[in-house]
């Protein structure tokens, strides 16, 4: 920081302020035709949230979302390129044009539907509160006694923040992995997560925790940018197809080990088709 004058700092401020003005240009819509011409689809996915989306020790992208995305790419006849994203990078990565589509454990929530276009649901999930096995936790009020970890910007962040009594200490981490790590390290005593969290927590701290509260049954969909009709239509047709031909059941058998859920035809505040 040697010899930085006040004037140069002012200039720096002015430069920084001017930057957004340069950025009003559109990032260009993407269509299935364009993706086919390009020969690959760029998919935003989670990198550290097994079994939804995760990078294996061998460095390969895997998980339920990865399988569905690969099927979609095959449907379009193109290669798939995965971009692993942090939880709270997902929507920005899509809206700023960094990826074509998200298969990234995206719970279909009304506030998100204002920012992105959801497809029809392809998988169901439940947001849960996990606490020490020995404690009696039956109501939202009981959450106030714990320091709770969540992944920043994930559905469990929204749910825990909404349901925990005022004054509860909630710690937000950059993603699912660090939040589980915080629980396993003992930095927090409870965690907001999804149906698969317990499997992972059992590996780190066996026998100490269990699902205590269920907040919300959620459906996950694929996301595209608002107003991009063609790719949304292609996704919906694809999801209908894999539901009908049993390919979705195969993916379910591999990861969820339950029959395919019954999906709703509509969700309050979350349109499935672009207009």
């Amino acid at each position: 920081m040697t010899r930085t004058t006040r004037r140069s700092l002012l200039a720096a401020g002015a430069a920084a302020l001017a930057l957004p003005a340069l950025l009003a240009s559109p990032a260009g819509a993407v269509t299935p035709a364009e993706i086919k011409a390009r020969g690959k689809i760029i998919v935003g996915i989670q990198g550290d949230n097994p079994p939804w989306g995760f990078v294996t020790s061998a460095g390969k992208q895997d998980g339920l979302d990865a399988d569905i995305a690969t099927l979609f790419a095959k449907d379009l006849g193109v290669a798939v390129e995965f971009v692993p994203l942090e939880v709270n990078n997902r929507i920005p990565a899509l809206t700023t044009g960094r990826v074509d589509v998200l298969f990234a454990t995206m719970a279909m929530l009304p506030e998100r539907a204002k920012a992105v276009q959801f497809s029809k649901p392809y998988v169901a999930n439940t947001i849960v509160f996990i606490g020490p096995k020995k404690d009696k936790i039956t109501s939202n009020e009981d959450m106030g006694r714990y320091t709770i970890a969540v992944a920043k910007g994930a559905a469990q962040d929204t749910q825990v923040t909404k349901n925990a009594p005022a004054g509860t200490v909630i710690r937000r981490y950059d993603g699912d992995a660090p939040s589980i790590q915080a629980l396993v390290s003992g930095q927090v005593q409870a965690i907001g997560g999804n149906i698969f969290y317990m499997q992972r927590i059992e590996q780190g701290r066996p026998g100490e925790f269990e699902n205590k509260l269920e907040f919300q049954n959620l459906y996950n969909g694929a996301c595209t940018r608002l107003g991009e009709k063609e790719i949304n239509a292609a996704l919906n047709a694809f999801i209908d197809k894999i539901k009908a031909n049993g390919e979705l059941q195969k993916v379910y058998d591999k990861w969820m080990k339950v029959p395919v859920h019954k999906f709703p035809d509509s969700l309050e505040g979350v349109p499935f088709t672009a207009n």
Partner: protein
Amino acid sequence: MGEAEFLFLLTGLKWTVLLSLVGFAGGGICGLAVALMRSSGIAPLERGTAGYIALFQGTPLLMQLFVVYYGLALVGLKLDAWVAVAIGFTLHASAYLGEIWRGSIEAVPRGQTEAAKALSLHYVARMKDVILPQAIRISLPATIGFLVQLIKGTSLAAIVGFTELTRAGNIVSNQTFKPLLVFGVVGILYFLLCWPLSLYGAHLERRMAVAAR
């Protein structure tokens, strides 16, 4: 932590090295331009580059990465995540290297410039053959010191979601639940990368201090 996990960390290390090299090379080229403009004697250029340097030295690297990462996509440049991150590091490095090299250009005695002018050498020859060779020698310890900073700085790419060494460590630690071991190994890998450079920088510094005596 088994062999597969360790290999995964090494893949992360590869990206750390690659990112550092690209950032350093890109930052070196742009940084030279910044340094020359900053010491050009042309007021608007000097003020502009001073602002550029102040902006990058006065804000956190993490914010620079965030803004570049999302900003580039907004201007319509659809780049691979890693190219976007590399551009972020290039800009960051160009400001720091620009400032280091400006200092060393100015540390070359004025008499050299005057003598070169008296020999009627034009700007390019004066810089290329007289000033820069001396300036580079003067700047070497600081330049190497910054390279170490840059290597360590690439760890922040993890927060943007880029799988380099630190993020690989995060992922492995979360699969094995042995953070003490995993972050220990990650730390050692960084140390093995940075320490020889630091030692070399310190060695050069000592040698120059002796020469100056």
